[in-house]
């Protein structure tokens, strides 16, 4: 196979490999075919189930609509090239392949892999499959860097770009609706400042500026506007340690000289440019985070049960987790990421131990900043759902030599929450959640590290919900039901669809009343009379599990879209 080329394959070449990604026992190869949309080719060890073609050791399938002749030709060439290859042999060569994604680690495994660009196979918006795409992990991965943000009273962020971008990127103020249901955004939590925020965004000073590029700025260039903002900040009396300049895509496209604008202030050391398109090694967030932690070097380290938490957003759930640990005698020293308070980060070394929430979007930061620290590191499976939360507390308790105290606190808390959990489980048993899947998206939903650390299906099943899988089966092809995990299969019914019409019909007739989607207010779901739900419904911790169940039960009980959804249909 040829090396990947960022451009389309040259005319006359049948195809080019754009990326290869491994997920468990499946490898997805994105290939670019001249004059046709990209194609995702899925390789698994030969399993005897319907496939486009089988080689001696492999089953080869594809994701997408009916194959175009050039796609078919490319697929046949791929199959010919892999005629005698075994799955393991292909996997062993992955590191040499273009943009090869590392293997998905199991939940609770070391979060050491940079997987931020995984599942970048075909364009989600440009793909011919977008009508049946409900999982937009590429958008999540693309915007994860803006979820991680520096905060603190002495940090100012300047976003150089157009305001509309905020509708597609994670909200920064908790008030802007995003087109995507990003997992790190919590609009469902109580309004107002979440509890548990420590030394976060200053109350008195504005901490976030936007150059708010308009049409005319696009035409005439936005650098002057950025310079003006930076000049005013530099001249202001606001006392800051750092002004971080970030840019959206448009200034890059029109060639704004962001580095030049920032360079004028480089001598003063306060204004820094964070180029999100730059190679990963130029990661300003990591650099400043590491520097802040380093400031605490030499401080006296606590010997008591003191713990740092990484990866749990500032939220009521975090406060509850801290309270539960506190009741067991374990103090949380710092809880950072995705918000990184640089002042709080100076205390990071005070604690002897750090607990990292497995999350692919945070993994690069863990790897660069936290894992090299001389602290004990725990990476228990994420505490989503009742059982996982109890297991998580158990691991943390054991690591802090407070296992018994944690056990007692958990028992008490469980007793308090028990009636609610039991009641919700009874409600959940009468409710069903829907998921629109194919081979690859099913694996994505199974894999917490592909869903911001949230094991969506496992939590839903553990809470007692019935599951309806709406499975894509290309017209004329035998339905390809992905191999369901036993726990999922026991709770699930499978329905098939082959085109937008049959998808709607299937969604309408399936007994589920809520359907999963990463798109905000997904019209495909509401117009079919169902309620959308997303990763935003899921919270960590015991109380988080209760609220998760309450939300899901509430979504299933919501009759609004059943009655009025058809009126919301796009015309």
């Amino acid at each position: 196979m040829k090396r990947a080329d960022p451009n389309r394959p040259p005319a006359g070449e049948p195809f080019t490999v754009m990326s290869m990604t491994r997920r468990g026992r499946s490898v997805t190869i994105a290939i670019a075919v001249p004059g046709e949309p990209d194609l995702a080719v899925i390789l698994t060890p030969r399993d005897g189930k319907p496939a486009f073609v089988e080689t001696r050791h492999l089953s080869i399938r594809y994701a997408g609509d009916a194959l175009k002749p050039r796609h078919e030709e490319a697929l046949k060439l791929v199959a010919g090239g892999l005629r005698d290859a075994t799955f393991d042999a292909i996997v062993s060569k992955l590191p040499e392949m273009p943009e090869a994604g590392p293997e998905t680690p199991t939940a609770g495994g070391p979060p050491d892999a940079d997987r931020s660009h995984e599942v970048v196979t075909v364009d989600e918006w440009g793909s011919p499959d977008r009508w049946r795409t409900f999982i937009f992990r590429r958008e999540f991965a693309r915007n994860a860097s803006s979820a991680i943000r520096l905060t603190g009273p002495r940090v100012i962020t300047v976003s150089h770009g157009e305001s509309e971008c905020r509708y597609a990127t994670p909200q920064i103020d908790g008030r802007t609706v995003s087109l995507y249901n990003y997992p790190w955004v919590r609009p469902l939590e109580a309004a107002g400042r979440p509890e548990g925020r420590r030394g976060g965004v200053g109350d008195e000073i504005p901490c976030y500026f936007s150059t708010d590029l308009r049409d005319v700025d696009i035409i005439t260039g936005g650098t002057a506007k950025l310079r003006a903002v930076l000049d005013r900040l530099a001249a202001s009396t606001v006392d800051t340690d750092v002004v971080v300049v970030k840019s959206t895509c448009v200034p890059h496209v029109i060639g704004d000289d962001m580095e030049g604008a920032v360079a004028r202030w480089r001598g003063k050391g306060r204004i820094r440019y964070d180029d999100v398109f730059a190679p990963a090694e130029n990661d300003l967030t990591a650099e400043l985070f590491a520097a802040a932690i380093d400031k605490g070097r030499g401080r006296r380290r606590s010997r008591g049960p003191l713990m740092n938490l990484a990866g749990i957003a500032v939220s009521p759930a975090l406060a509850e987790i801290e309270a539960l640990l506190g009741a067991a005698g374990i103090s949380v020293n710092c809880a950072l990421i995705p918000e990184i308070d640089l002042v709080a980060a100076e205390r990071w070394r005070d604690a002897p131990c750090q607990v990292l929430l497995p999350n692919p979007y945070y993994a690069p930061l863990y790897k660069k900043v936290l894992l090299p620290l001389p602290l004990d590191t725990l990476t228990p499976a994420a505490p989503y759902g009742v059982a996982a939360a109890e297991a998580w507390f158990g691991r943390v308790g054991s690591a802090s030599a407070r296992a018994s105290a944690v056990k007692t606190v958990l028992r008490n808390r469980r007793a308090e929450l028990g009636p609610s959990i039991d009641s919700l489980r009874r409600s959940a048993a009468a409710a069903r959640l829907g998921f629109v899947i194919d081979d690859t998206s099913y694996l994505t939903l199974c894999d917490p590290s592909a869903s911001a650390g949230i094991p969506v299906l496992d939590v839903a099943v553990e809470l007692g919900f019935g599951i309806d899988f709406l499975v894509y089966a290309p017209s004329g092809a035998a339905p390809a039901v992905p191999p369901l995990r036993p726990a999922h299969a026991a709770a699930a019914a499978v329905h098939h669809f082959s085109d937008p019409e049959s998808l709607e019909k299937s969604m309408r007739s399936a007994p589920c009343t809520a359907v999963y989607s990463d798109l905000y207010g997904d019209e495909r779901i509401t117009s079919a009379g169902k309620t959308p739900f997303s990763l935003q419904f899921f919270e960590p911790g015991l109380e988080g599990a209760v609220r998760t169940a309450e939300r899901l039960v509430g979504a299933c009980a919501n009759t609004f879209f059943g009655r009025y959804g058809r009126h919301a249909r796009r015309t």
Partner: protein
Amino acid sequence: MARRVEKIVFLGKGGIGKSTILSNLSTIYAQMGRKVLFVGCDPKRDGTMLLTNRVEIPTVVDQLVLRNEVSAESVLLKGRSGIDCIEAGGPEPGVGCAGRGIARMLEFFKESDLFARNRYDTVLFDLLGDIVCGGFATPLRRGFGQKVFIVVSDELMSLYAANNIARAVVNCAQNGVVLGGLVANLKDSSADEAMIGRFARLLKTRVVATLRRDPEFRKAEFRRLTIAEHAPGSATVRTLRRMARTILVIDPGRVPRPTPMDDRSFYELSRTGFRR
């Protein structure tokens, strides 16, 4: 009965003579009694400068910068012979996005209903050199322009640009855009006119006019006039008039889709002067 609006687009490698030829065509159409709008999509603004004798040309982008809105009164300039002129303008060299400026101007056309029935019957678009990005192609993509003409010389890079432009025409064919033909603008007497003919046939188009070096062009330029005004009886102007008539009679519905070459074929064929 209202005349069909002729929407004519001139393209070609930078410096090939598009603005000069198009401002002359505009003058000739105006002299023929047509209601002409000259649309400059080149930040140099040279077409409108020639037609209006002005140096300071207010542009759509200027108005956006100054007022954040555009009105027809603020950007439409009356040229000699009653020609209306409008310029997209653009950013300072080296910054911003000129292509977006052109796209924004065309949005203004829609907002202001500038192409309202009977207002103009001939609209001529003077586009910047090669179509380097989607913004510069918006006059084609949105169906504003219809008959595309490419100005070429016998220099290789001018033909290369022409081949690329033909590709853009193919891409925009769904908007009713057609390649009306090539205009040969020859700078010296030894120019290989026959080669341009062969090149045109390879593209499945034709040469609608051949212009030769004429000192009157230079003299007219110094007088800030078009050659159609400066030397109306000259051979060059007769050729331009013939071309103007030819353009009008082209029926877009009968023009074959061009067949541009891929780069490899272009360079291989160029070695033999585009002989198959």
